[in-house]
């Protein structure tokens, strides 16, 4: 038995018939082909599957696809616009906020949501805002730094504007 669902994912409308038990994360990855959203814990601790539903950060492993019926979903693939990285993506790159990169899409989505709610979070507010996301590579040091730096970029207080996605990352930078 399937149910029909319709939702807008990254600005594009989609209609499908899905089983009621199909998790949103599986729908996004396996039906919509958007594999940037990851699964790492199955029990909603890790946040790797974080997406935005109607602008709000949600763990897509804890939502059935049918619950997203009629909603606007944004995944990591939909965050950069017209080839320009979202400031949070740019900051993760600049500040070495990722290593293996597996938890990264979830962190970026959660951080983008946090900064939308609170454009100038304190370190404590960053920690509270991202406590639903786990990373095993970075010790969180550079993630914290990246969120701070993204906040400055979005508030226009950063030294450097966001760069284009295209182009070389090879210019040596002062350590």
């Amino acid at each position: 038995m399937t149910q029909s669902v319709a939702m807008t994912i990254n600005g594009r409308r989609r209609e499908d018939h899905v089983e009621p038990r199909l998790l949103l994360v599986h729908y996004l990855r396996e039906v919509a082909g958007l594999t940037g959203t990851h699964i790492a814990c199955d029990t909603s601790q890790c946040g790797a599957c974080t997406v935005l539903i109607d602008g709000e950060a949600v763990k897509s492993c804890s939502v059935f696809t049918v619950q997203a019926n009629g909603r606007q979903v944004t995944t990591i693939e939909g965050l950069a616009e017209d080839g320009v990285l979202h400031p949070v993506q740019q900051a993760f790159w600049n500040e070495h906020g990722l290593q293996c990169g597996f938890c990264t899409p979830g962190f970026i989505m959660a951080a983008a949501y946090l900064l939308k709610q609170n454009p100038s979070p304190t370190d404590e507010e960053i920690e509270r805002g991202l406590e639903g996301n786990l990373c095993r590579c970075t010790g969180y040091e550079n993630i914290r730094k990246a969120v701070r730096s993204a906040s400055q970029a979005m508030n226009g207080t950063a030294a450097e504007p966001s760069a284009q996605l295209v182009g070389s990352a090879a210019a040596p930078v002062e350590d």
Partner: protein
Amino acid sequence: MAVTTMIGARIQRREDPKLITGHGNFIDDVNLVNMAHMSVVRSPHAHARIRSIDISAALASKGVVAVLTAADFKAVIGGPLPVTNAFVPDKRQVPEQFPIAADEVAYAGEPVAVVVAEDRYLADDAAQLVMVDYEPLPAVMDIEKAMEPGSPLVKSDRSDNIGWDAAFPGGDIDAAFAEADVVLKQRIGQQRVFPTAMETRGCVADYIPYDNRCTLWTSTQVPHFIRLFVGGALGVPESQFRVVSHDVGGGFGAKLRPYPEEYLATAASKLTERPVKWIEDRTESLQATTQGRGQIFDVEVAAKRDGTLLGLKFTQLLDIGAYHGVFSAFQVVACLLGGGCYTWKAINARSIGVFTNRMSTDPYRGAGRPEATHLVERIVDLVALELGMDPAEVRRKNFITSFPHTNNFGLVYDSGEYAKSLDRAMANIDYPALRKRQEELRAKGRYTGIGFSTYVEICGLGPSSATAPAAGIALVESSMVRVHPAGSVTVSVGTHAHGQGHETTFAQIVADTLGVPYDSVEIRHGDTGDTPFGYGTYGSRSLAVGGMAIMASCHKVVEKAKKLAAHAFEASEEDIVVDQGRYSVRGNPGEAKALAELAFASYGAGLPEGMEHGLEAVSYFDPPNFVWPFGCHICAVEVDPETGAVSIDRYVAVDDCGNVINPMVVDGQLHGGIAQGISQALFEEVQYDDETGQMLTGTMLDYLIPTMAEMPHFELDRTVTPSPTNELGVKGIGEAGTIASSIAVINAITDALTPFGIKHVEMPARPDRLWSMIKEARA
């Protein structure tokens, strides 16, 4: 213009754009046409006999393609899982493990059947319907009880529960103890922990029927190893078996062996004539991916009243699990490094590997070295406390000061300056002010502590001169450097990466060594189809061994380019000068040819007589020695005596990994490494039920991985003592943070609790443990 432009520069990683935009290619992102999905039925018992397996209900379930058990797999898998028994010190018992249990299971989570179905949901549905009739047998969970004569056996194929029992004598221990003013004893534990890569394991096998060809996509640190063993067991020659590992979502040592599921998925693909995908869920991962540590050390130290360390005796009891991990015995290296960065008259170590009804232990970030550092740094603090000396002074008094230094077991430390990193760290944290503050706060009933960890580690595995006598193997590394006609460069290597950023850092090395633009260099790894055989990435070896293999190929390319330049300029080869990739005749730098021009010429007509076309080289590098990073970490904590909670106020680290290729990447490796050590010290512990052998920490709800809120800011600094072992002067940094950090935290906690008469604290130092200790001390 600087001679070096890329090596040492903070280059942003070229790996990142795809990863931050959701375009990575991790194992679960691999999808093939007509692909079926495998679900593994696992034993719920730690130890049981399998009476029978009824697959009829599962076979009838919706969408099921096949239900397979050991009998089916025995027809296509021609052998057991590999164990590098060469590492097992005395090879006392090296039992075989077939990828799937036939009649007896020896740990909860051991595979007993697999279901292949049209999708993951349907495979999992049917897996619930496989009926296995078990006869439960006693579970052997306690290491010491398992060693007793007459203990129940972990599995019926064993004569007892001892895997190895090996002595490591390092000098006249009785003479050393005879000189002692003080002798102290301490038991020090190393709880089992989960490596917990954020990406679980998984694989996609595509066996082509009638052609005996196979491609296996898998999340691994060692693609060539997987090809060698899985291909070998399935009867597919290496030339026809391709292992591909794209982006790997973390490894930490838990993805450096061929696993049962890689055999089972490949065999299932062969049996069903379908591509087969298997993705481990987190609960499976916690049960069936190798775990780290799981050791107990009984230590005895002899020292003089002035703080001079004399002798160290210890026994390592290592919980192997039900079967040897492929490299579990490597953790015996803790015995050889138990002396740390100090001079000892003698060290006498013994390692006993004990089987229990648990998943295997295997290397986890540091693998034997965190254990060695933890024990020696704990012991040095106990000596300092006993003698009423400052822990920094006991360390300084006993540091090895001249290099190369041959330790008590014949290992040669290549270079070091241990006092320098200690001094730097003490200055960075302002040690005198911290001690003063500690005194002031104690008067107010607040308990702060300062913990030192001065460490040295062995990495860059490994020189065949060292590994061959012990293990009969050579852990060399490989590279192929190919300069294309228009000048861009492809570098293929036998190492792999799972977050380390090799595509960036290796390209930095090649850009400088060949004198070509960084953007013109492409690094390939992870695909056995287009890389030379290599032993993979672990043991902080990829730069010190793999990077040197790259250097060797670059040098060969430069040598040939010089010949091409000499021919082009009608000059003698001896007169060719190379400056940043520009080749000219001595004295005439104005007329120079770039490497790209020479590469173009190498593929064209008019080569020097006898010269082959093309500009490329293949190299294998066998290092002359290990490399020996070192450093000093200092942790400052406060313990709340009413709750037992620990807060980390400062964490200062001064590390020395020799020359640095990319400081941003080095710092990142340290951050993550330190975090894992802190996490072992404070939070993590794999727990099984003592009686039944059931996993109690089977989800991330129960197994505590810290969030950002639990991790302090890391104050990093470094000294640079180039390694004399290799031309780059590099050591390794992937494991250093973990090797140093657990004991810095524990020593700080112990220091904080000294007023209560507490001398030693075990890991994890969770609030309940500390609260109970304080309560008991106050009573």
